[in-house]
């Protein structure tokens, strides 16, 4: 379910007409790495969605203080082994407050996934559009965009966020604000990578051919360049994600983070720093979640990349009907007909 969302929400997949997307989808499905990554991701999303249920199953909530479960004299280290792991608190409790870590972790998934995925989408979309425009446009456009990017990059997050806070009304939803701040600040890398690749790609004959076919720059970008740009962009985006999780935490210092007592992995990780010797569990949990997310996106990113590259796909023998078996008699007609339907 989520993988499909990811795919269709992915600008890369959306560019090829339906038949192409279907083939890419088929090749994606054929890869164990994609399945593994997708499954983990689905699981994470389920966890986030079912956070209240999961916490209820444990019998805890993420905000209740358990002062008795921490040793106040030693700074608030949870009492008991492994950060206070017990039947009541499956993953132990938060040092200092005694709040249930399992509950905080699953609730944290909501904010972290939403903000990081949302911000990554914003970054990738802006980066792609501006990078392509700079790479394909005339000299003036390229210069203007390059300079705009430079200005954006040189502007410190700090100044930007502070100025933004002065403008944004206080009632503005925090996760959305976070998503926007991170997204609007972090597209420079994608834009640069896309522009660089575009400069290399646009000298190819097939781009010339597309221009002759009456395609405008925009169409050329979408149809001819995007599939080739997908590789670096998807790879890069998969890595933007974890840094966005961490950025979310960093922004709380500027007053644009999620409001306490809402938990997020980034926030947990930030406050865990001082604890990592006294209560390693506390650092380990959010780190592990972020790592798992990173890994699943990296796997998925690789798989998407492979699925988008027909040569790699045939090297790995992906997307054949039934491997080894003879093609079904209606095989030839099936694909185009389906494609027509999907495109209509």
């Amino acid at each position, binding site marked *: 379910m989520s993988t499909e969302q990811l795919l269709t929400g992915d600008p890369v997949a959306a560019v090829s007409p339906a038949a192409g997307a279907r083939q890419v989808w088929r090749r994606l499905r054929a890869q164990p790495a994609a399945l593994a990554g997708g499954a983990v991701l689905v699981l994470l999303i389920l966890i986030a969605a079912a956070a209240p249920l999961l916490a209820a199953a444990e019998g805890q909530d993420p905000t209740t203080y358990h002062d008795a479960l921490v040793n106040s004299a030693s700074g608030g280290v949870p009492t008991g082994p492994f950060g206070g792991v017990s039947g009541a608190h499956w993953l132990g409790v938060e040092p200092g407050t005694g709040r249930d870590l399992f509950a905080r972790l699953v609730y944290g998934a909501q904010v972290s996934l939403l903000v990081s995925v949302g911000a990554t989408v914003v970054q990738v979309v802006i980066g792609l559009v501006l990078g392509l425009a700079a790479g394909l446009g005339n000299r003036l456009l390229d210069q203007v965009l390059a300079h705009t990017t430079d200005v954006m990059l040189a502007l410190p997050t700090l100044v930007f966020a502070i100025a933004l806070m002065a403008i944004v009304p206080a009632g503005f939803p925090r996760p959305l604000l976070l998503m926007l701040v991170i997204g609007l600040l972090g597209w420079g890398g994608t834009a640069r990578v896309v522009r660089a690749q575009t400069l290399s790609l646009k000298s190819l004959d097939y781009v010339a051919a597309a221009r*002759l*076919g009456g395609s405008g720059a925009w169409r050329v970008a979408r149809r001819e360049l995007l599939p080739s740009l997908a590789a670096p962009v998807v790879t890069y985006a998969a890595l933007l994600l974890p840094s966005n999780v961490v950025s979310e935490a960093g922004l709380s210092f500027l007053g644009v983070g999620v409001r306490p007592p809402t938990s997020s992995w980034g926030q947990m990780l930030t406050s865990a720093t001082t604890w990592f010797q006294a209560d390693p569990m506390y650092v380990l949990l959010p780190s592990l979640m972020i790592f798992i997310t990173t890994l699943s996106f990296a796997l998925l990113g690789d798989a998407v990349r492979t699925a988008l590259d*027909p040569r790699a796909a045939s090297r790995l023998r992906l997307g054949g009907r039934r491997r080894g078996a003879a093609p079904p008699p209606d095989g030839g007609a099936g694909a185009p007909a389906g494609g027509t339907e999907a495109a209509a």
Partner: protein
Amino acid sequence: MSDSASGVGAGVSGAGAGPGAGAAAAPGPLVEVRDLVVEFPTGEGPVRAVDGLSFALGAGRALGIVGESGSGKSTVAFGLLGLHRDTGARVGGSALVAGVDALTAEGDDLRRLRGGLAAMVFQDPLSALDPYYAVGDQIAEVYRVHTRAARAAARARAVEVLDRVGIPDAARRSRARPHEFSGGMRQRAVIAMALACRPRLLVADEPTTALDVTVQAQILDLLHELRTETGAGLLLVTHDLGVVAGSVDDVLVMREGRAVERGTVEEVLGAPREAYTRELIAAVPRADVPAARPVRTVEAVREVRDGAACATDAAGGEVLLEASGLRKEFGRGAGLVPAVDGVSLTVGRGETLGVVGESGSGKTTLGRMLVRLIEPSAGGLRYGGREIGHLGERQLRPVRRELQMVFQDPVSSLNPRRSIGESIADPLRAAGALDDRSVRARVRELLDRVGLDPAWYDRYPHEFSGGQRQRVGIARALAPEPKLVVCDEPVSALDVTTQANIVGLLGELQRELGLSLVFIAHDLAVVRQVSDRVLVMRAGRVVEEGPADRVYESPEHPYTKGLLAAVPVLDPAESEARRLARAGGGPAAG
């Protein structure tokens, strides 16, 4: 089938040594292929490109593999170098090269086989070279892999072989990157790379498709010389029977992955046994015979005496495209090269203008300027009465679809990540006039017309043979129903029957739609067949221009005369005689 296999080889003495046996003293024939099967998986199930092929080739002998486009020739050639591994292809049978089984060899054996024992000349020269490195460096690199020569020595060798394949000013040109070379020059560079390593077997896949006849002759001579000098074997894959006639001892005719006929070149070309072979030979176009075309309109056969006459014609309103003093320079300062140097021409509505000329004479550059893919450095270009030479991309939009081009390099002109159907459909979709169903129907129709299976709509470029890709390129150029198509070597990789079909198709369209063509080709025979008028180019300038028959029958410029004399002939004996004649005064092979 194994009977004829042993009959072809010269030094046959029993079966080849097994894989892993020392190749240096391999007692068997140089190449021995048995029951080779190659199958590619595709979206529509596996494609069997080679289907139980067996043959052998003795040391120092030359075997030509001919056959229609897509018959599996390149696939066999790839097999000999073990290039199917890791591509997803399933391979069966065996292919021994100097005792090493190319299909199973590993490690050092494989490395020695590749480049050391056998060297390959690839069919698509542009894509075969690394765009990032100087051509000379690339040659030097492969040379060093096999000889451990010093860097400087390897560079010297690179310049030497480049010079040998006829790259002018080789020392300087060796420092250029592939994109600075013309198509023909790239092809020669690829051949030079193969020669550099002094292999025992040269596998040449369409080595001369992009070469004009003089250079082609020169290259074929070179291959011949090499064979006699070093005793290397040659496996020549080509669709051009003329080339085969002069360069090989034996011929293998392929069709749909199987051998149709084999024998010595005299037998196969002189007295073909199979009907298929006879058809092939009959379809070969001839430069010395006027085209049997339907008579054109009056203006198409007008006499052109000079540039002034062209202008007068233009005033008549029939002129579609008119170039005056077109010029294009590459590079800057000292490295400035005028690729096209003041060319004026006109193309009338429904007319075909043939452009011939030696490799690197600026044909492609001229063609690209005519469709405004590149902006001329100087000169004017009028299309339908409107000056388009220096318009920006936006102002060009309305005329874009009316001016199309078939690109010289079919590989780089197709997006590897898009199915060919979508590539062809793109102009139709961009126009937005048709719905998806009609677009697909139209693309299928186009595929069918260029001789491709409409069911291949969803296949990707890498799943096609060289000739098939070229046809995809033609189909794409025709899709938007253009007014003028610049065809840059559109049929160079096609076997004669397919070639005849394509030429026929273009003629039909011309009649139906009044299409104008600029037909760039090195193959003088084809040009004569299709063109109303011919333009002969050399070093960026037009040296001769006139009605096709006039130019072919009474060429005025010595260069044109030379070109016509170099056209290969089908008769092996005649070819041999010509070669000997050329050897007298030709460039000394160093």
